[in-house]
């Protein structure tokens, strides 16, 4: 994966998947939850974040990115509850999204 591809992965996926997640208060408004839904499940037109990630992460066999793939799987599994505004699911999905951003940045920086 080129440095440019890695930068795109960090910034086009990591930054935006955590856009709302990083800023959620303990009792988020419906507007904030709708933003989170867009970040996680409609990151690009017709594409959930996990799909955008998969299309960019060409060498997803590397351990850090396998972790991220699994985390996106958990986010996708929470979709119905997040869309419904179930607070526990919203907060869990947000926590995973923040972790994804952190892990992608760590991969970009390298050891």
């Amino acid at each position, binding site marked *: 994966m080129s440095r*440019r591809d890695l930068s795109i992965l960090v*910034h086009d996926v990591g*930054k935006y998947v*955590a856009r*709302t997640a*990083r*800023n959620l208060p303990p009792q988020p408004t419906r*507007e904030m939850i709708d*933003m989170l839904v867009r970040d996680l499940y409609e990151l690009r037109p017709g594409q959930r974040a996990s799909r955008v990630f998969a299309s960019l992460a060409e060498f997803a066999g590397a351990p850090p990115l396998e972790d991220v793939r699994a985390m996106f799987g958990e986010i996708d599994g929470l979709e119905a509850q997040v869309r419904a505004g179930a607070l526990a699911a919203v907060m869990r999905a947000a926590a995973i999204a923040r972790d994804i951003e952190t892990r992608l*940045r760590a991969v970009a920086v390298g050891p």
Partner: protein
Amino acid sequence: MSRLLVIEDGDEYAEFARVFLTDLEVTAAHSAADAIEALRTHGADALLIDLRFDRAPPSALVGDVESTAARLFGGDCERARRYLQDEQGTLILADVRAAGFALPALFVHDFPPRRLANLRRLYGDVTAVPSLDAATIRRALGGSP
């Protein structure tokens, strides 16, 4: 600081700012020309600028693909197009500075220190934060978290 001009090719930054930086008056622009017009018409106290513009039409980008290809990439227009997209935020900032606006500019990007120092040498008051974190951005813009 109360007026923030967001410059991006989508609407993600502006939406973020309107929801999480509610103490700021947010306006948005999608090109250098839009931004300069907004600054002349409404003014602003700071800029929040996206770096990559991969969704903007080529006609809206600062920089010409063919001349950039000839100047920097040995005639390779595809590499020139990617360069113009990847660096569009800094190219827009250059145009804004050339138009006479010296207001603080903030990027949400983890630039290497030398790259950020170079941007400051070229464009003056430039700050960068790594994430769309409202408290960090507010601090970077000179407000309280």
